[in-house]
């Protein structure tokens, strides 16, 4: 998934073969585009109802994806004012995105959690 925003417009891409639930995909897409600077601080995500209609999913599915981002401190959800990217969101989103990518790659190579943890440990020290 991938998305980008130019002054009020927003493109969301996602992989139909992705096995993750839709709400995870939505959150991941927004995270990645924030990390890559396509979505900036103060940018507004599309209204959940609009996105739900476009994706053909329930509005609660979208809200669940947004809520995930809110809990990670990436966006702020305000009633009536929509969901806005927060100032601290960028670094959060970047870290999450990288972790997600790392885990996906490890899975592909059949590397277990312990081996991965050892690798991280090695890199950190």
């Amino acid at each position: 998934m991938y998305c980008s925003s130019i002054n009020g417009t927003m493109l969301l891409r996602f992989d139909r073969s992705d096995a993750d639930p839709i709400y995870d995909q939505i959150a991941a897409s927004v995270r990645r585009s924030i990390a890559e600077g396509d979505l900036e601080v103060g940018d507004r995500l599309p209204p959940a109802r609009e996105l739900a209609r476009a994706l053909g999913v329930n509005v609660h599915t979208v809200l669940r994806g947004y809520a995930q981002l809110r809990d990670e401190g990436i966006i702020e959800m305000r009633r009536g004012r929509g969901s806005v990217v927060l100032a601290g969101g960028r670094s959060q989103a970047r870290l999450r995105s990288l972790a997600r990518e790392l885990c996906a790659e490890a899975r592909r190579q059949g590397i277990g959690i312990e081996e991965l943890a050892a690798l991280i440990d090695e890199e950190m020290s």
Partner: protein
Amino acid sequence: MTRVRSVLRLVVIPAGSLAVTVGVPLWFLGRLPDPMARHWSASGTPDGASSPILLTALAGGVVLVVWVALLLVERRGTPSSASSAVAFFLMSLLAVLQVVAVWANLDVAEWPEARAVGAPVALGAALVAVAFGGLGWVLTGSGAVPSGPAAAGPAPRMELGAGEDAVWFGMAESRGLAVLAVLLVGVAVVVGGVVAALVLVVAGLVVFFAAVRVGVSEHGVEIGLGWWGWPRRRIPLDEIMRAEVMDVEPLAMGGWGYRVVPGSMLRGARAVVVRRGPGIRLVRGMRPDLVVTVDGAAQGAGLVNALLERDGRVLPPTPGGGD
């Protein structure tokens, strides 16, 4: 002849409106109560009052703003019959209402004793204003209409992977129309009564066309009016042949709002116009084309074309895209 018309349209009538709006109340200031009645209930009895000076300043200010707007449009070289008509309507309406207010308040001791102003008088005032609007339309003439819509642009295409899906959201908004709506509400507050209701209806319509939201997905293209995106309409993908980017010139599309484009250039296309600038043109087979102004039009049109292509629709080779 054209020069006489221009002077009438840009100087004489606006100046006349301003003179009446401000001059009449000031001339009779000594014979008006302070405060004077400025608002009448539906049954015709006065139910609101304010200082004659304040009322005159407000009404005169609005006429002045409309006049300046008229001149600005002229300076940009984009006068239209519609813009002159709206300007004349507003200016003459204020002038006539000032005259009505002064007549109703003349020589009365206190504002509640002011003469009744019922629906017939209000309607008469509105008719006079409509007549002036018509005059503005006629005076502008056909020579001022710009040279037709911009040529249809290319049909961009977005890369979409085999298993990839995408949705796109875009919007366009017009600060000018938003300001106009606020201005109209202001006019309604000043004039009051039956005419105010009419002006408020117009203000409401303007607000709906001050913004538009567009969504593109595999379910089609969704167009919603206003910042809230309602009422909205969905055009299924299988009704669309291709999407093009075009530079929308409102005056060539017949104005702002929901339009049936005049002339043969776009074959009677329907258009949602909130501002000048880029828009998406959806070319449909049997039905009229649909044009909508939106920021990031290239990206939106690109996704429409990518989705069409994925569905196995062969897009005709563009650029130029003429019919």
